[in-house]
């Protein structure tokens, strides 16, 4: 979608949002357990997490539909914790099912927040026309929502949430009901649009790819708390917990104990990344992302290499998944097979099931996660 930047509304009043220790219990169940989050003006932040992690509840607390038991929410420094949703709170919301008014046309839906603000009719018309052009729905202005496709409905919802230039735009899994192709297209569109108009967006999803694709920063949630908050790349490369490592992308986690500058994983010696300061006796897990591993045919019976960045095993499963080969390699001494994603190209010879395999990596691609007492 090309942006008609002349008409583009620039959200001039996009605001920063801060959450401090937001807690909420419903019927004795703690759904939010002290959520801290800061979002800069014009930033795209995604709340990511499995269902029940509290991401939608957090969004609804920001929207004002859930009143926290304790904690503080400020928008541009102003406390809005107990402010009801509405003009004062000034937030545009795209609901999961879009919540388009079925008895109004596209244009009437989009005009609704402006009519509520009693703007002059002429101004309403111009602004509705502008924002519909922005989301490329100007041709469908007189349709009822029931006669739109899912993607079009989503864009109407977006236009309606943008048209009154709210200080913050909240989106609750807006791609959930769309098919994969359309989803990818709209994700990029939304990202571009957000950058263009400079809106502050807080976005909820359970889809890690979507989160990483779109956001400046991702807040990974678990059990009503934020597990880790940072740019997607940081979360992916340097997860602070096994949960974070497992939730974002595929992972190989080798748990062991640091011994004399090596990680001892059930007798296998793994070299630590250069410059690591880890004392002997610490329990650590080495995260090896499947795509950082290289696999080739190995010598039968080989066990260990000297440099600690190489393992030997047997191909347990090999599958072609399009852009890559997906291998599972049984390594003696490891409880689970190692997962390897290797780009399918001429440089890599394909291995068959049952073949001996050698897996190598760059020791600096390893990320260490300190294991707590609970981690098995």
């Amino acid at each position, binding site marked *: 979608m090309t942006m008609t930047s002349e008409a583009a509304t620039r959200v001039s009043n996009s605001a920063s949002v801060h959450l401090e220790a937001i807690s909420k219990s419903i019927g004795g169940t703690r759904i939010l357990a002290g959520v801290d989050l800061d979002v800069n003006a014009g930033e795209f932040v995604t709340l990511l997490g499995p269902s029940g992690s509290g991401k939608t509840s957090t969004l609804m607390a920001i929207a004002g*539909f859930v009143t926290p038991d304790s904690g503080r929410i400020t928008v541009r420094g102003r406390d809005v914790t107990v402010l009801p*949703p509405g003009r004062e709170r000034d937030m545009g919301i795209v609901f999961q099912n879009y919540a388009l008014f079925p008895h109004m046309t596209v244009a009437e839906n989009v005009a609704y927040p402006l009519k509520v603000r009693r703007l002059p009719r002429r101004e309403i018309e111009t602004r509705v026309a502008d924002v519909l052009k922005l989301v490329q729905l100007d041709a469908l202005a007189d349709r009822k929502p029931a006669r739109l496709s899912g993607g079009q409905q989503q864009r109407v919802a977006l236009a309606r949430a943008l048209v009154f230039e709210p200080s913050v735009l909240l989106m609750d899994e807006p791609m959930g009901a769309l098919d994969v192709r359309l989803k990818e297209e709209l994700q990029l569109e939304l990202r571009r649009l957000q950058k263009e108009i400079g809106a502050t967006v807080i976005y909820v999803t359970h889809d890690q790819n979507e989160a990483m694709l779109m956001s400046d920063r991702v807040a990974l949630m678990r059990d009503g708390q934020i597990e880790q908050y940072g740019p997607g790349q940081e979360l992916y490369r340097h997860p602070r917990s096994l949960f974070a490592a497992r939730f974002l992308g595929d992972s190989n986690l080798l748990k062991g104990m640091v011994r004399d500058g090596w990680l001892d994983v059930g007798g296998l010696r793994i070299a630590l990344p250069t410059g690591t300061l880890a004392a002997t006796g610490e329990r650590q897990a080495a995260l090896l992302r499947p795509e950082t591993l290289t696999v080739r045919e190995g010598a039968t019976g080989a066990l260990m290499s000297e440099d600690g960045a190489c393992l030997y095993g047997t191909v347990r499963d090999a599958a072609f998944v399009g852009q890559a080969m997906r291998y599972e390699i049984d390594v003696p001494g490891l409880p689970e097979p190692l997962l390897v994603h290797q780009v399918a190209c001429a440089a890599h010879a394909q291995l068959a099931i049952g073949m001996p395999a050698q897996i190598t990596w760059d020791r600096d691609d390893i990320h260490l996660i300190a294991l707590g007492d609970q981690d098995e």
Partner: protein
Amino acid sequence: MSTKPISSPWLAGYAWVLLALLLIPLIALVPISFGDSATMSALPDKLSLRWYREVLGGQEWRNAFSWSLLTTSVATLLATSVGYLAAYAIVHSRTRFKAILEILMLMPMMVPTVIVAFSTYILATWMPANATWLMIAIGQALLALPVATLIMAASLRGIDPTILRAAVSLGGQRAQVFRMVTLPIAMHGILSAAALSFLIAFDELLIAVFLTKPGLETLPVRIYDSVTYELTPAIAVVSVFLMGLISLAMIAGALIRRFVAAAASNPASR
């Protein structure tokens, strides 16, 4: 999401009061039925079973009840069986035909009751005099037919056609498929339709008023005459009895629903 823009404690209070007002008059019939004198009061000075004895011992009320039971039973049977065929045809037929059939079936409900009663009266004039009770039953069946059809059509619509196709492809004969597949699934709808048909037919007044004659008087006609000419607590006794019947029907309905739900969630039990 917790905000409910359209609600207030006033609304809630008002709604509960209205529901109470719907029920209280009917509940008030119970004390009235236990009155002792001929005048009626919701708070009788002295409780007695006088009017219960009067009604249960009176030949007139007993006859009226017997006639009602007879006509209503026949009407229920007719409405349920014809309604089932209609529901089946409506659910499985193609578009234009279906619309005509639907309107035809619904006509007795759309036309004012007094006109259905009139046409039944005409029908009775074509028939021998000793078939009058049957004509009452047919008229009652006509009034119950639309509701019965709608209910059974709704439950037949709930049957996945692939199940029927599967049953036929497994070699089931038509009658077998009906008995072993369609009927059990549609049973809930059939029972509801029968229960409602019974209540509608039992409540029917005008047809019976038009066709009534000495020795043939249904319960509603008896009540109607009694309200018009006597107005005694005997009517309250009959009303309490009728409400007991409805309570039983509603409890049975709830039990059946629960049973069907349990059976549906546990297919092995079928």
